[in-house]
């Protein structure tokens, strides 16, 4: 390619950049330390999530237990109300219309 040749003749393809002294000697140690830190952080996150989930399970169990203990007598008191509600909900629109017409 003619244009490529022109660029090559004028600029060459040598590397004009350089790095600080010892950069490549020290880099592997730096990156391995960063990986170690990341591993530690991931372990902490994993343990925190596990602890949080265990806390959720425990508090849910506790709440359900206390709810059951507190609400047992109430369920008995409410049973008549629930039966009435069920009866009313089975009344269809036609029956309501008839009732209203008769009331007039």
């Amino acid at each position, binding site marked *: *390619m003619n*244009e*490529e040749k*022109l*660029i090559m003749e*004028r*600029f060459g*393809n040598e*590397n*004009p*950049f*350089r*790095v*600080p002294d010892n*950069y*490549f000697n020290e*880099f*592997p140690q*730096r*990156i*391995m330390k*960063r*990986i170690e830190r*990341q591993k530690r952080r991931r372990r902490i996150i994993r343990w925190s999530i596990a602890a949080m989930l265990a806390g959720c399970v425990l508090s849910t169990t506790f709440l359900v237990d206390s709810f059951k203990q507190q609400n047992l007598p109430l369920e008995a008191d409410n049973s008549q109300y629930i039966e009435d509600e069920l009866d009313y909900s089975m009344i269809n629109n036609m029956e309501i219309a008839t009732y209203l017409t008769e009331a007039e």
Partner: protein
Amino acid sequence: MIDEARIIAQLKDDSQKEKAFNTLVQEYQEVLYWQIRRLVISHDDADDVLQNTFLKAWLALDDFRGESKISSWLFRIAINESLGFLDKKKRSIDISSDADGYLSNQLLSDPYFDGDETQALLQQAIDLLPNKQKAVFNMKYFQEMKYEDMSQILGTSIGALKASYHHAVKKITDFFQQND
């Protein structure tokens, strides 16, 4: 040159994983660094991107199935990281500053740039290319990489790479015709 099959087996073994990865870092740090540095230009940015490249590789080790060479896989991560970095940077700086010779002036005052004004100007011309075209130009022109290897790394057909390189060369010569 490392034994690929052996290093892959060691990377899959938890007791040897870190040692094998350290070998990978030592083997490929320089070639990846220069690929990254030519794209991001400053040493500090290249250092950040190189660290991110190896961290990403470490986290993705379990996904590496050996379908491509380790070197191609690492190059792919490095190029993606570099292009991502350039996109982010482009959004945060004034794009017109490139055309004003901003980069070549910056390079001439960079303690880690040994080139002269002409080489700084070439870097400025390259910097005006779209990011992927810049990567293609650097790989071919400076690293003299084969199109087959570039195709594996960039996931682009050889024909498209040849066309991209041709366009890059044309744009760079046009830049010098306008600035001479």
